[in-house]
């Protein structure tokens, strides 16, 4: 068994709440969800920046794009470092169809990120900063809707 998917292994044990009843597949589902959020946020930032670059340096879209990219960074930081080795098992990076997301607006992408964030167990010790991420995503979605992008 790969150590990364073995619930008794220290690597995965670090990312499971001590004493929780959570199983390894449930934990992996959280990481897959976060990974999908991260990719969608990255794509949303690129979409916003592409429009901002057309509008010029004073466009309010630059601030929105940076905010979305920082949220993407927050999501990356929530993912455990040892998942780099577990990528093939968890199939991270394969959840999002890049050709399909290319055609979507930032509002659509952020809406999906917000929906993905709803079941996140933000009360867990290792996802304690997830609540800030959820709030940021809601603010960014509101801003993107207002700027119609």
């Amino acid at each position: 068994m790969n150590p990364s998917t073995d619930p008794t292994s220290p690597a995965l044990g670090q990312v499971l709440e001590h004493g929780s009843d959570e199983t390894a597949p449930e934990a992996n589902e959280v990481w897959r969800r976060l990974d999908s959020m991260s990719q969608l946020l990255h794509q949303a930032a690129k979409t916003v920046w592409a429009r901002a670059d057309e509008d010029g340096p004073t466009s309010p879209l630059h601030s929105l794009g940076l905010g979305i990219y920082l949220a993407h960074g927050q999501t990356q930081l929530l993912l455990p470092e040892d998942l780099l080795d577990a990528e093939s098992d968890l199939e991270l990076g394969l959840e999002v169809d890049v050709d399909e997301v290319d055609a979507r607006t930032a509002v659509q992408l952020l809406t999906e990120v917000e929906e993905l964030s709803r079941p996140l167990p933000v009360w867990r010790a290792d996802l304690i900063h997830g609540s800030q991420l959820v709030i940021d995503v809601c603010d960014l979605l509101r801003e993107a809707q207002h700027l119609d992008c």
Partner: protein
Amino acid sequence: MTAEPPPPSPVSASVPAGGAAFAAVEAELFDADAVPFATGDIRTVGEMLADVDHQARLLLLDVDGDHAGGLVRGWPALVTAASELWAALPRTGYADEPHDRPMERLVAHAATIDNSLSSGWPGRGDPDHRVTHMTETLQAAGSLVRRYGPEISGHGAALRQDLQAARSRTMHSLYVAAHAGSVALHSHGYDRYREARQAGRKVSLSTVHSPYVVAPTATWVGRFATAEAIAGRYLAGGLIAGVAGEVRPPADDHSRIPRALAGWDIQAHRTLATRSSAADNVIVSRTQALIAGVSLLLVDADAHHRAATTSAGDDSTKERLTSSLDAVGRAWNNLASRWDDLPAPTDRPDSKLLRASAEVRAAYRELTHDATTTFPPHVIAQHPGLERALNATLAAVESGPELADVLAEKASQPGLVGRARALSHRAHNDIEAGLATPDPTGDVVWVSPADIHARRLVALPEPVASGLERASRECVAACGRASASTVTSSSRSHPTIAAGMEPPPRTHEPMAAKDGARRQAPHH
């Protein structure tokens, strides 16, 4: 209490050149006592004390019998940290100050508790993590006061009241924490009583503190009740009266943007010096682009303000400045877009860089944004913090060339890799746009479809590598021009800068030249 770490003093121009001068500067830079702590905590002492008070209240809201042991174990360290902060607060000139006595009693009392820990329950072990957080915050506040407290001058009533407020907050935190300890101990006693009853053992009820608090818990309850009483007597007039003279930062904090930009400048340099991550480079470039974009807004707002209040400024200077700021914004954005092709899906940015960038963005939004979009310039022009924000922003633009230099060095490093799909798009787009020279042999597949399909990281194709280096050079040049324009504009248009804060006009030097100059400097 609002004592903030002051900015480092500039080296006096009268300091003689040579080894002695360098030694003096190094002593200040590397003296362990002169650097209070380096946890990235930028709160003031007043904010830390308010946090400890808040944590104590939260602790009281959420304690039960299971927490009793941890609270007892954490109490001696908490009192020690509070007493050290207390002792560090500037004195008002009297050798024996009456407000010291309650704290001295608490320290002596906590020492006896510490001595008794090993003799039975609860024993040595981990303290409650909330008490540990309070202790660490008090230690950080004490460290700040020891470092910067001696620089506080004056003996006015306002200062005395602020110091008294700091003592009252500290004592109130201990008072509430002691009460939380008592509550937890009572609960612990009741738990033990209930367990004994369930096990069929008879327990005689106590008549002292609570019917359910029996030995040995009763001893601990008595000790915490004593500590609570000592702290309570100090606060006999009430906390509100005790903190009546507390200095609080104004709700409209005009120093937030300068502070955020100073923090950003330091953190960006630190991150680029110690890490090699394309995600960091994207954040640095995009944040610099945001600074350039906001500087255009602020220059425009400043022109509105000047037109409304005094005579019009020099239009040609403003035009040169806005033109160079516009160019530097575009250059940073172009560079960021190219760096964004490189990070792997699992590339993690530096968390401190992330926070510094977020603080810059948030600070600017207070000045320039309605809830979701930017204010028009005439609205920004009415903001009292405009001038400080503009000066700090132009100073940040002036330091842009150094960051651009570092990123240019990173762009020319061999072995850069990026996401296959993004690099393929970039190579074809650059060739189509005439930004890169097409391969003379015809249409070349720059990235293999197999790599794209497998989402591999691949080496930068030649058009992408040369495009990244070209964008870096353009950014360095644009930053140099913007830096020169801001210096000229500042000296002509801003009386505050021209009068005493004007940075020396500088020409942009390549890093290699600066390094050479450093190597020639005397070093002891």
